[in-house]
Each structure stands twice: as structure tokens, then as C-alpha cells.
């Protein structure tokens, strides 16, 4: 019973502006013709068009999943624009100087380093605006050690054999409703290839921006690390503030060969809708990593703060013996946001190990669910999993749920699951205030403490960013 403990409003979304830029868009709607249009626009080879059409035909037979603990009006797939690109003379900017100044300003405003001189030292960036990749920095420098880092479309043109070998090898086009949709209509994204024995000398990063009001974003990311290679990859995203919902249905595939290591970090800040739940991004994403080789390692770290609806389960298939899968997640929901997120760890090889650390924070009227599957297959001798799922509630009207599914088919496996739920209560806040600390700073300190184990896994700048982002998202009228 307190009038003052009331975290209701959050600071306005500061990335909510729209860039006024002429776009080259497809008409809304989805059919085989739309797919042929996209494929033709991109000058794709026939096999890729076939891949798309096959996915589309399969998608037509599928139903939208309804098992997640989220409620929303189903998107009208015929109202979505499946291709939207900023108009440009050449198909790809040859250098930064050719990029539309309006676009450059947009990314400056977003704080995304697309200019190499002004860039954060040591981060190469691929920038995706609506349906296309705008620019990729540090490409030449990376090429000197054999690393390929480019937009997906460019990879299709320049490295078709790699794309053909790995596309859909981790997430088949028939995997699930949204993955099938993505496979049919994906427009761009990033491709990373780290050759044998190479440690990527800098963090690689993609920044996704949805600008067009009616467009969906369907990007595709593929990262391949060959034997003994390693890479750390960062993903960031924002969208303007509209009172309609935009659909984001991405597919991310990671492949790690023997002793390779891929670390994939996301700070997701798509527009979440307003306080009353109007507008915001539907974030339906399929992310999966295949630890194909012996002693390979894939680590997902995510900080999910945006989107009206989040439906996302970055997973690891632990095929190689002694491979390691990790999932570190912070998911924050406020107002009317709904998140159903978690992971799948599938142990196939011997002595495979997985770790799951999930921290859910719910405030306002939001709903936050963790859903995780740990599966140990019969041959996964000596498999081990440790899961820790903690929920934190702020205020009275939010909810948190945990759905752990455990399937063990090998008796030597050890699976441990721990879960806690806590509340930032009036008494805790009062204690901080009595020591002179304002309630908002108290909340941010408590939340940072709560998320420590996940933030530790993020690259430095991202950790700082994430800390700030959480505080911003929870900023409100306390006291």
C-alpha cells in the first residue's frame, strides 16, 4: 500500500524519429511475385530464388505459433512491405562519401560509427537500413587476414559457394513459421567468415534500423568460424516510433568448427510501443548456433529492452564432442511489453557443456517469461548443464513466469536448474533513500547488481551502454 512506490513512466524513446528519405519499395503484400521481385532486385542466382520459393511454399502450409505467453493482434502479412531501400544510384556505396547525407546524419544521431575515422576504435560495423545494408566499415583491413565481413547481398554475389554451403544449414527454411517467412523474403543482413586459425582482431558489429512505417525487417545473419578461429560479434537495433506495429523476423545462424569460438552479443532496443501498448516492434527472431566441431564454443549474450513483443530463443546445438554452449540474458519489460524469451541447449556430442543465466526484470503492466529447453540426447555421455533463472519484479501489476523444459536421455548427464523471484520493494527503496540515494538511482543500482553475471559477459562499451539503457527504461515517477 504505497502511493509513492510507483514506477510508471519511462523516459521517452529517443531513437523514435523517422528519416525523411526517398525509398525504393515494393508494393505491400506477399506472393511468389513479391519474392521474385526481391530476388531480381538483388540480382540473385537461381538457386537462391529456389530456396526462397521453397520456403514460401512451406510457409503457406504453416500456422503462426501460439504457445508463447504473449497476446497480440496477428500481423496482416498482406499489409507488410517486404522490400524497402533508400534510393540510390549505385547498388552499393563504393565509399562513405557516396552515402546519402541524410542517412549519415541518421546514424550519427543514433551514435552508430559508420565513418571509419570517427568510429569507435576497434569495431567494424555493417549498417542495415530497412531492407538493405548501407555500408560496412573496416572491410579491407579485415580482408588482409582473410576475414570476410560484408552485407549478405554482397556475400551472395562474391562468395556464393560459402553461402550455398551454410545458408539454412543451422536453421532450415522449414524450421518454424517466422524462419520460413524470413527464408522467403529476407532482404539483407551480415555475413562473417573467419578462416582457419584466425582470431578476429576487432569486434564486428551490425546495426539494424527499421525506418519505413509499413516495412517489415527480415534480415539474415550468417557467421562461420573455421577450425580454431574466433570472433566476437555485436548487434544493435532501433526503430522509429509509430503507432502501428512493425514486424521484425530475423534469422541468425552461427557455425563453429573444431575449437572455434563465436561470441554473439545483442543489445536490443527496438521501439517498445507507448505506455498504453500502442505501436512497437514485433520481434520474432530465430537465432541458433551449431557447435559442429570438437571443443567448439558458442556464447549468446543478450540484453532485451525493447519491442512490444519479443519471441526469441537463441539456441545451441552441441554436436561436437566437448563443445560448449552459453546463454546469458537480461530481458527487461515495462508498461505493456511482453517478452517470451529463453534458449535451447541440445546436447548431442559427448562431454558437452551448457550454461544458462537468465535475468528477467518486469515493471509496469508487463509480462516477462523465460522459456528454456535443455535436451540431452542418448549419446551425450557426460553432458552437463547449469541453469539459473532469476526474476525481478518492480511494482504490483507486472508478471514473471519461468518455463524450464528438461529432457534427459543419457543417465550420465548432470542437469541443474535454479530459479529465484525477487521484488524491489518499498522497504529496499526506503533503505536507499534513507541513506540519501534517490529512488531511481536505487533501482538502477539494484538492477545492475541483479544483472551483474550477464553484463560481465558483454564487451566493455556494450556493458556500459546496457547499464545506461536499463536505467533509462526504468526511469520514472518514483517518490
Amino acid at each position, binding site marked *: 500500500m504505497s502511493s509513492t*512506490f510507483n514506477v510508471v513512466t519511462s523516459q521517452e524513446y529517443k531513437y523514435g524519429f523517422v528519416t525523411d528519405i526517398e525509398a525504393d519499395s515494393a508494393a505491400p503484400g506477399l506472393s511468389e511475385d513479391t519474392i521474385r521481385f526481391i530476388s531480381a532486385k538483388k540480382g540473385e542466382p537461381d538457386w537462391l530464388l529456389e530456396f526462397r520459393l521453397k520456403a514460401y511454399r512451406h510457409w503457406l502450409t504453416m500456422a503462426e505459433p501460439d504457445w508463447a505467453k504473449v497476446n497480440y493482434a496477428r500481423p496482416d502479412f498482406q499489409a507488410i512491405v517486404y522490400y524497402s531501400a533508400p534510393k540510390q544510384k549505385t547498388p552499393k556505396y563504393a565509399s562513405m562519401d557516396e552515402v546519402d547525407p541524410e542517412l549519415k546524419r541518421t546514424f550519427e544521431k543514433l551514435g552508430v560509427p559508420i565513418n571509419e575515422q570517427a568510429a569507435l576504435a576497434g569495431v567494424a560495423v555493417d549498417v542495415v537500413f530497412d531492407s538493405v545494408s548501407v555500408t560496412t566499415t573496416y572491410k579491407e583491413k579485415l580482408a588482409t587476414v582473410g576475414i570476410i565481413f560484408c552485407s549478405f547481398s554482397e556475400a551472395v554475389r562474391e562468395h556464393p559457394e560459402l553461402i550455398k554451403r551454410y545458408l539454412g544449414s543451422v536453421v532450415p527454411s522449414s524450421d518454424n513459421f517466422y524462419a520460413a517467412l524470413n527464408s522467403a523474403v529476407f532482404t539483407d543482413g551480415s555475413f562473417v567468415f573467419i578462416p582457419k586459425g584466425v582470431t578476429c582482431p576487432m569486434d564486428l558489429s551490425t546495426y539494424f534500423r527499421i525506418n519505413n512505417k509499413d516495412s517489415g525487417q527480415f534480415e539474415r545473419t550468417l557467421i562461420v568460424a573455421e577450425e580454431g578461429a574466433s570472433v566476437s560479434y555485436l548487434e544493435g537495433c532501433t526503430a522509429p516510433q509509430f503507432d502501428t506495429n512493425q514486424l521484425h523476423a530475423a534469422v541468425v545462424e552461427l557455425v563453429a568448427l573444431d575449437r572455434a569460438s563465436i561470441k554473439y552479443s545483442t543489445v536490443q532496443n527496438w521501439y517498445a510501443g507507448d505506455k498504453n501498448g500502442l505501436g512497437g516492434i514485433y520481434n520474432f527472431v530465430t537465432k541458433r548456433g551449431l557447435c559442429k566441431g570438437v571443443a567448439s564454443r558458442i556464447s549468446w549474450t543478450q540484453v532485451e529492452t525493447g519491442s512490444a513483443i519479443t519471441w526469441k530463443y537463441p539456441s545451441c546445438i552441441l554436436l561436437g564432442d566437448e563443445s560448449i554452449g552459453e546463454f546469458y540474458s537480461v530481458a527487461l519489460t515495462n508498461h505493456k511489453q511482453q517478452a517470451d524469451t529463453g534458449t535451447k541447449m541440445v546436447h548431442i556430442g559427448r562431454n558437452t557443456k551448457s550454461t544458462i543465466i537468465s535475468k528477467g526484470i518486469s515493471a509496469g503492466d508487463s509480462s516477462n517469461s523465460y522459456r528454456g529447453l535443455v535436451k540431452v540426447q542418448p549419446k551425450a555421455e557426460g553432458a552437463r548443464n547449469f541453469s539459473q533463472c532469476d526474476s525481478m519484479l518492480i511494482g504490483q501489476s507486472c508478471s514473471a513466469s519461468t518455463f524450464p523444459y528438461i529432457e534427459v536421455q543419457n543417465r550420465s548427464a548432470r542437469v541443474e536448474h535454479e530459479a529465484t523471484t525477487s521484488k524491489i520493494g518499498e522497504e529496499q527503496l526506503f533503505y536507499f533513500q534513507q541513506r540519501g540515494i534517490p529512488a531511481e538511482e536505487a533501482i538502477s543500482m539494484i538492477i545492475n547488481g541483479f544483472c551483474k553475471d550477464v553484463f560481465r559477459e558483454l564487451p566493455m562499451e556494450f556493458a556500459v551502454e546496457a547499464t545506461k539503457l536499463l536505467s533509462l527504461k526504468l526511469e520514472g515517477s518514483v517518490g
Partner: protein
Amino acid sequence: MLLIKNLTASINGTPVLKGIDLEIKAGEIHAIMGPNGSGKSTLGKVLAGHPAYEVTGGEVLFEGRDLFSMAADERARAGLFMGFQHPIEVPGVSNSSFLRLAYNKKAEAEGRDELDPLEFDDFIHEKIKLVAMREEFLDRSLNEGFSGGEKKRNEILQMAVLEPKLAILDELDSGLDIDALRVLGDAVNRLQRADRALLIITHFPRILETIQPHYVHVLSGGRILKSAGKELALELEERGYDWVLEASAAGGAR
């Protein structure tokens, strides 16, 4: 320093404080004793600004300012400190970072320099000596898993860090072993100055042998029934509270 005039307050609609008058001047030490449930902790929390309590009447001036016009954190930065009877646990927040933030908030409000982690390290090492706390407690989560006595020690450490003008210490002595009682009593005495004041809430005269009060008040049923010098504490221990209540009833409602 603190002037309380006819203060009434309730929780969940139930009146708990029913007209408190009390003046505490700089340099003074006051003790409040009284039966369980009489409203002692409530008085402290109302003064500190706990949101669950509703002030229904009266007035409180702290250093001449209307206390109730200030938010809880503002009161703290202005120099009002409450050592809690039951300090709360905060998992994940390290004791030292909590102490540093509290210190810096106050420093900022007073226009003094804030301390960076290294400077604070030096600073806090002097302070933990005062309360004889082991260093490892600085790295632990705030009060998490602390024993009752360790929590009380931590409260006094916070007091030593913040050096408040007025400290309300709610049952500092309950849960403390004999040595801890002496150490913390001495620490509180050392923190007391001519321009500071103390309000000690306790059930036992023992702590008042170390922290010697100028006045002892008996709080019962939400009212102060009797005020006298420190000898009252011993008399209460010998005779209990009934005679005070009876005398007060005989003397009519105040």
C-alpha cells in the same frame, strides 16, 4: 535541531502516533523507551519519511526547515540518519559501492568533492576501524546473510560514513554481543559532537551506560508519558512500565 509539535501519524488507517511533542537540541542525547508496539520505530520512520506512514497532524522542524516538505532522500542528505531495528538485505549490491554512492550523494548535496573508488577505499578503511569491522564485509552484498549483530555494525558504519547531524538509532543494542555493544557504543560516542544530536531507541539501560543520555522519555500508546534524566532508565528496568502508565492515567490525558 529537531522540534516535534503534536505529531500524529497512522499506518493503513490505524493511528499509531497520537500527539508527540519533543525537542532535541544540538549536542543532546535523548533516549526513548517503551513497551513493544508503542510506536517507537514508527516515530523514527515517520521522521525519516517512510512512505507507508501517513502524517495526519502536527509539525516537525529540522534545523528550522519543515521536515515534511522534504523527500526521504533529501532529509537524509540534510543530515537525518536512521539506524534500523531490522536493516534490509539487498542482494547483488556490494556494501562498498552502496556506501560510496551514499557518501557521494551527500557530498554532492553539500558541494564537496565526490570520492572515486580509490579515494573511497582509503576513506572507508579508516571508518571500518572505528566499528571494528572486517574488510571482507565491504565486498559482500549489502547486509545479505549478515548476522543480526553484523547488520547493526553495518548500520553504525554507515552512520560513520555519513556523519549525520541527527542520528535515530532504533534498538542498536538488540542482537549485539557484549563486546560489540561496547565497540559500537564507543563508536557512536566518538561520532557525537556539540553540533550533532542522538535519539536512542532501546529497551535496555545497559547501552545508556555507554551512550549516556541527557533525557529519557517513555513512549506508550503513541504518546510520550514521561520525560526525565538518565536515572529514569534504571528505574524503568526495576519497576517496569505499569507505574508510568498508571500515573499518567491518574494525571489525566495529556
